[in-house]
């Protein structure tokens, strides 16, 4: 059974926000909505300071708190692990947004555009269905579904791969089937030490962060 997962190699990320921007392009999100974004994190005290850049977004958890609390069943989880939102069912109560420990969900009440009035590009992509309802990273599910229908491999074939992974200029982001032991993500996790965000909450996130290679046996 396919289970999609995202892997971010924190050794590589430089916080450039190219993934942030490309996600906005691919998904036509309104100003202020960043389904994918990168945090700038500082730890320590001068001069012993470290700084890291951390891509975040929906973790497509195994046990999503958002799905548990959603009163309308708009939020569901597919067998391949992708957590989806049915925009037509959602009542925009934002319960999922406060339930998410990763602050991955956004709701835009009113149509908003980069410069006030919509530009032609924004007009082209405007989707009234996404107003006043919860939205979040979908792992570019449309690309995955269209791609796999054509026999392409998400995470390997760009056409079938999430935009952020395609755009990443440091090869920080990888995407693939974690149930396949030979997939790119499985191999990355086998060879490197990794963690997940807020693991102690028991959400079972499918977003893995690599921080070092494994010691040789």
């Amino acid at each position: 059974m396919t289970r999609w997962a995202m892997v971010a190699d924190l050794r590589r990320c430089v916080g450039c926000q190219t993934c942030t921007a490309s996600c906005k392009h691919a998904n036509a999100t309104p100003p202020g909505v960043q389904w994918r974004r990168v945090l700038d994190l500082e730890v320590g005290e001068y001069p012993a300071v470290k700084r890291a850049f951390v891509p975040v977004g929906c973790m497509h958890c195994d046990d999503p708190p958002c799905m548990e609390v959603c009163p309308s069943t708009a939020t569901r989880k597919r067998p391949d692990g992708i957590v989806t939102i049915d925009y037509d069912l959602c009542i925009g109560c934002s319960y999922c947004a406060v339930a998410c420990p990763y602050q991955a969900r956004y709701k835009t009440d009113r149509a908003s555009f980069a410069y006030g009035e919509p530009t032609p590009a924004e007009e082209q992509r405007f989707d009234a269905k996404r107003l006043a309802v919860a939205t979040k990273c979908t792992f570019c599910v449309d690309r995955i579904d269209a791609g796999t229908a054509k026999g392409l491999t998400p995470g390997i074939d760009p056409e079938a791969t999430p935009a952020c992974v395609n755009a990443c200029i440091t090869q920080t982001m990888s995407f693939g089937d974690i149930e396949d032991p030979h997939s790119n993500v499985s191999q990355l996790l086998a060879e490197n030490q990794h963690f997940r965000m807020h693991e102690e909450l028991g959400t079972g996130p499918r977003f893995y962060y690599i921080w070092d290679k494994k010691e040789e046996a």
Partner: protein
Amino acid sequence: MSYGPKPWHQSNWDFRAALNFIFGGAGAGLLVVAAFSGLAGDALRAEMLLGMALIGAGLISVWFEIGRPLRAINVGFNPFTSWMTRESFAAGAVFALGLAAAWLGSQPLAQAAALTALVFAYCQGRILQAAKGIPAWRVPALAWLNFTTALTEGAGLFVALATLFDTPAKGVLAYFSLALIARGLAWSTYRGSVAKSAARPALAALDRAGKILIQFGTIAPLALLLLGLFAADVARIALLLAGVAALATGWQFKFVLITRAAYNQGFALPHLPVRGTR
């Protein structure tokens, strides 16, 4: 605007959401005390209608906050896991039973409605507890604090209204006192359980509200109750003040809980990346 990695305040639920807990809790608590206080006839009717009106006001308030109010009916689709759905069912039951009780002037129906109101108040607390994104909400102790304050506010409202007519019955006052103490203890337990997980600004806000809750919402009303017990001539005014204080402090606490102390967890890394070599 850019947020994180340090915890920041949620911006999804504002005062409209807070009013749901504020009015809903007080209304449910009022129904509970009214139905079991021995009231009958028009007096009972009035309290039932007031309790339901408060619950209704809370729900209408939150109806104004949701993005797609015309789809509000969808809120009932997930009784399997969603406390918000369950809350809506409980509210439905409260209204059905409560309206029937008011229509027929029936005490048994009023008590049935009151039991569903207890469920309603419990659901509200569980709604908050299930919000894993907010450390100040996601502890079991909060559900109990929310529950006890609902009962206390309801009792306080009932007592305050009653003093306009007569001195409330001793049973009611005893219940009121127990509720006050239970709420005080619930706060203390709650505060202990969020000490390590809530962000500093959240704790600061909670402490300010909690101080008011204890000083003006627990100690003062208990003192006034005692005063009323021993000084009959000031009893009604003392009890009025006690009731209002119990109500108002609970409301301010819930307002702060939803709109001032609701910081998320932010982000932190258990390991920092190794860049090149150690």
